[in-house]
């Protein structure tokens, strides 16, 4: 994973509607990036569902949360609609996994990102990160609140 204290790699990715979303859009706010393997997979469904339940609490802490996977914007749109998600889902589709690799969350053998969380502070510095030991382990939302409280 990316090292704490590093400048977070810049990115500009399409969201579920095809609109470009950049790291710089979040300047002045904290940003939680949830790298996850695949839309609609059972574990990813649980993970984003539980984060959705506490999204308001995350946002009340001057923070935003976005999900990033290698799925296309069309898949993201369907996944969001299916679960009623309101956080942006960004598509690291082409070049495949480029942003996920830049954050050190890529699993080459699987061709998708590991389940990982990165907190970027208001100044664009990596303040915390967490990589699941395996892609089937969901980092609880409590870890996000621990990181935001630091």
């Amino acid at each position, binding site marked *: 994973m990316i090292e704490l204290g590093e400048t977070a790699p810049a990115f500009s990715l399409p969201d579920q509607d095809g609109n470009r979303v950049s790291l710089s859009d979040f300047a002045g706010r904290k940003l939680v990036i949830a790298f996850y393997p695949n839309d609609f997979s059972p574990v990813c469904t649980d993970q984003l569902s*539980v984060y959705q339940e506490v999204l308001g609490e995350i946002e*009340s802490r001057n923070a935003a949360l976005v999900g990033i996977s290698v799925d296309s914007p069309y898949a993201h749109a369907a996944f969001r609609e299916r679960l009623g998600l309101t956080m942006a889902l960004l598509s690291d589709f082409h070049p495949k996994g480029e942003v996920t690799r830049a954050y050190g969350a890529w699993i080459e053998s699987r061709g998708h990102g590991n389940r990982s969380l990165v907190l970027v502070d208001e100044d664009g510095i990596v303040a915390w990160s967490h990589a699941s030991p395996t892609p089937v382990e969901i980092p609880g939302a*409590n870890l996000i609140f621990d990181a935001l409280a630091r």
Partner: protein
Amino acid sequence: MTELTSSAVPPLDADDHVAGEGPEAIVYADFGCPHCAAVWARIRGLPLRLCLRHFPMAAKHPRAPALHAAAEAAGLQGAFWEMADSLFAERGRVDDPHLWERVEHFGLDLERFNSDRPSERVAARVRRDFESGIRAGVSGTPTAFVAGRPVRDGFEDALARLASLASGPRGP
């Protein structure tokens, strides 16, 4: 802001919904979750002291918040377990008319039930459990805790083994 940083799963208290006798297990479950219902059918009859805590995940199961509120509202009239067991057992009958049928079947006051369901008292009680689950790291349902520790995989079997420890033959 609500405190949601990590914290150990809270021990049982007087407000918890607890049934049965035996080794203690705390289960965070979602009444809209089919897996929870299947697991509940397997563990409900075990010789365990089971604590059921609310963990509605509305994104996956949009009806869940209403069902958890219904169980709490029934609980205010002394019928939490009747409603909870029924919601797990009859997952295809969870619309309001089905809930009202249950209320009448259980002999509860329907008018009071309907006024309690959307109340802040009920919402706060459900939220209490959900927030304690978040703080304990619950990220899917069902999730069980035994002796304060999460039971990660195959928890039906783990709870069955736990129950057998209490009910099995004792040594000399």
